[in-house]
């Protein structure tokens, strides 16, 4: 089912969708990378900090662990430090706690071997629900071994990341809207020649088939399409012309016997002739109706061969048999004219051809009948068989008057009759060879007259192969 959207819109939708996916992917990657970098930085600061803090811890004269505050160059500087710190002895008793923890434990009970190797970095949840990234380290002062825990709250980091995310989520749709609008405009501009072509093509009918699409750039896709369309128009125009000529020719061919029937009847009725003359007129009329009938049968056969689906009635059969069959039907004529038939075969084989056998028989009959008709008495009709590149080629060469070079193609036209009475093609109506050509074409083959020194050489070629024996 075709999409109801216009091509332009579809192109834009596709383009915007792909862009959206890419943007999301990009945002996710940037976000993750940023988060990882900031976390690492924080960890790095904490490790440095914990080493500094170790040097600042001391027991006062009451035996209470304190942090030296004189480390800061200015008194207000320590307000800027938002480090969370807790010191525990190995039994888990809290020795020191930074004031910004407000009595909340930092990390709870001691873990096994906490701070002994590495820094045990981890995220812990404080009692107020916020999270902190903490590191631990073991340290000894005055013979007391203690675990120092130090961390920073993750709240500011997460707030910053959230802001970053919101910014991305606002910016991406805006970018998509802009891209979509631009895409629409670009697509419309790109497809405008197509609209022009369609409007132009709408105006082409049977009466102005000579009209052609204008090609701006023959190398781009639209130019190629216009060229293809123009070629189609050209073939159509030719077919139309051929059909018109054919209709005119057919009317002429049908009218000629009708005219003589009419005249003969009128003359016979006017003259009140003798019985013998009447009989003569009637016999003439009958002969003319036979001619009419033959033309109509030929036209029907052409129509049948033209409209039948190729492949529908096609069967595999040995083509040599069919030619022999046609020759045997025509044998009375060849014997009568004492024509010698010579068959030459470059390799012994009964080649198999795929075609509508009944129709192909008509084609062979027409070609052979023609050859026999134009052969002089006591002449030779040479039939040579060759098989090359998967094609069976049959050449029929007679010793008749031959065909003028300029008529070699024309003899296949419907109702063509040569300029000299001796080269009238086909039987009576001049349909024989055009029927043969249509049939051979339908079987996927070719038929043509080859230039030869004397006589005519009709060549037929079909795709065909060696016989396959099936059990």
């Amino acid at each position, binding site marked *: 089912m075709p999409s109801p959207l216009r091509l332009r819109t579809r192109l834009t939708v596709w383009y915007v969708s792909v862009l959206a996916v890419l943007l999301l992917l990009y945002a996710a990657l940037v976000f993750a990378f940023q988060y990882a970098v900031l976390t690492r930085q924080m960890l790095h600061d904490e490790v440095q900090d914990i080493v500094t803090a170790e040097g600042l811890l001391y027991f006062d004269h009451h035996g209470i662990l304190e942090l030296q505050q004189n480390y800061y160059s200015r008194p207000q500087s320590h307000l800027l430090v938002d480090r969370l710190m807790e010191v525990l002895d190995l039994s888990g008793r809290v020795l020191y706690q930074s004031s910004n923890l407000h009595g909340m434990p930092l990390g709870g009970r001691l873990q096994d071997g906490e701070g002994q190797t590495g820094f045990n970095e981890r995220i812990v949840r404080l009692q107020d629900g916020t999270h902190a990234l903490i590191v631990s380290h073991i340290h000894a002062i005055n013979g007391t071994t203690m675990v120092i825990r130090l961390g920073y709250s993750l709240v500011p980091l997460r707030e910053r990341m959230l802001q970053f995310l919101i910014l991305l989520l606002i910016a991406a749709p805006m970018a998509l809207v802009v891209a979509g609008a631009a895409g629409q405009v670009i697509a419309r501009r790109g497809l405008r020649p197509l609209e022009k072509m369609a409007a132009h093509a709408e105006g082409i009918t049977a009466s102005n088939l000579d009209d052609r699409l204008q090609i701006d750039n023959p190398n781009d896709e639209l130019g190629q399409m216009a060229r293809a369309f123009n070629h189609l128009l050209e073939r159509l125009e030719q077919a139309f012309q051929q059909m018109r000529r054919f209709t005119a020719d057919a009317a002429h061919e049908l009218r000629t016997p009708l005219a003589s029937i009419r005249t003969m009847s009128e003359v016979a009725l006017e003259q009140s002739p003798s019985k013998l003359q009447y*009989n*003569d007129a*009637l*016999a*003439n*009329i*009958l*002969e003319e*109706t*036979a001619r009419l*009938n*033959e033309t109509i*049968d*030929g036209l*029907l*056969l052409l129509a*049948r061969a033209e409209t039948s689906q190729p492949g529908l009635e096609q069967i595999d059969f040995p083509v040599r048999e069919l030619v022999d069959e046609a020759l045997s*039907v*025509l044998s*009375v*004529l060849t014997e*009568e004219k004492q024509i010698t038939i010579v068959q030459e075969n470059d390799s012994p084989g009964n080649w198999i051809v795929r075609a509508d056998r*009944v*129709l192909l*028989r*008509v084609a062979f*009959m*027409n070609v052979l*009948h023609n050859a026999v008709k134009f052969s002089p008495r006591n002449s030779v009709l040479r039939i040579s068989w060759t098989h090359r590149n998967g094609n069976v080629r049959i050449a029929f060469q007679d010793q008749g008057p031959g065909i003028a070079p300029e008529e070699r193609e024309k003899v296949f036209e419907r109702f063509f009759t040569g300029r000299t009475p001796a080269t009238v093609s*086909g*039987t009576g109506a001049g*349909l*024989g060879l055009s*029927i043969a050509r249509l049939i051979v074409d339908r079987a996927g083959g070719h038929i043509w007259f080859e230039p030869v020194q004397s006589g005519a050489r009709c060549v037929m070629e079909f795709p065909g192969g060696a016989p396959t024996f099936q059990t």
Partner: protein
Amino acid sequence: MAARPKILIIEDDRRMSDALVSGIEAAGYDVNAAGTAEEGFFLLHQCHPDLLLLDLTLPQRNGLDILRQIRSEGTDVRVLILTSHNTVEDRVTGLRTGADDFLGKPFSFAELLARIDALLRRILQPPASTNLTIGDLTLETKTRTAARAGEPLELTAREFDLLLYLAENRDRTVSREMLAKDVWRETSRYTPIDNVIDVQIARLRKKIDDPYPIKLLQTVRGIGFSLREPQP
């Protein structure tokens, strides 16, 4: 002696119908003609014909419909379809519907008479004997030999077939179309064999007629050929 066979024609073209009636009557049959399906049915039940010549393109009612009704009623009548729609498919449809034979327009009248005869012979007469005689010409169908005035004739297979066909249709004219179809077995109508037939007839004539004073094989101009004893 048996009554003359009765034939009913259902054909809407008056001229065609008139010509058929006079031609078939002249050949020795009782003929009735109807121009419409209703008239045809009336005459069919009234006269009980042996054979019905049925045109397929009738006003109001298609000939195939009529045929279907005749067959469903179980009326005992042979049916020969005459039509200008004579493609292979039309033929098959006609014969499937219950026609006994099918003849495409335009046909030669000789062929129509031959078909009528063949259809009626199937019910009225036993098959022809194995020997055929026309004047002093004799044909032996079993041995496929022919002789004239006691002298054996040397005929090719095709010549014998041709002579046999002419002999079976003796005293009647045989058209080239009939010969092409029945002797040469050409299925396609656009095959150039008319002069093959003419030459073959000429050769046959040379063998069976030329040496003898009485000529049996006659050319009927515009129609075809006929094998008959000339009337004194």
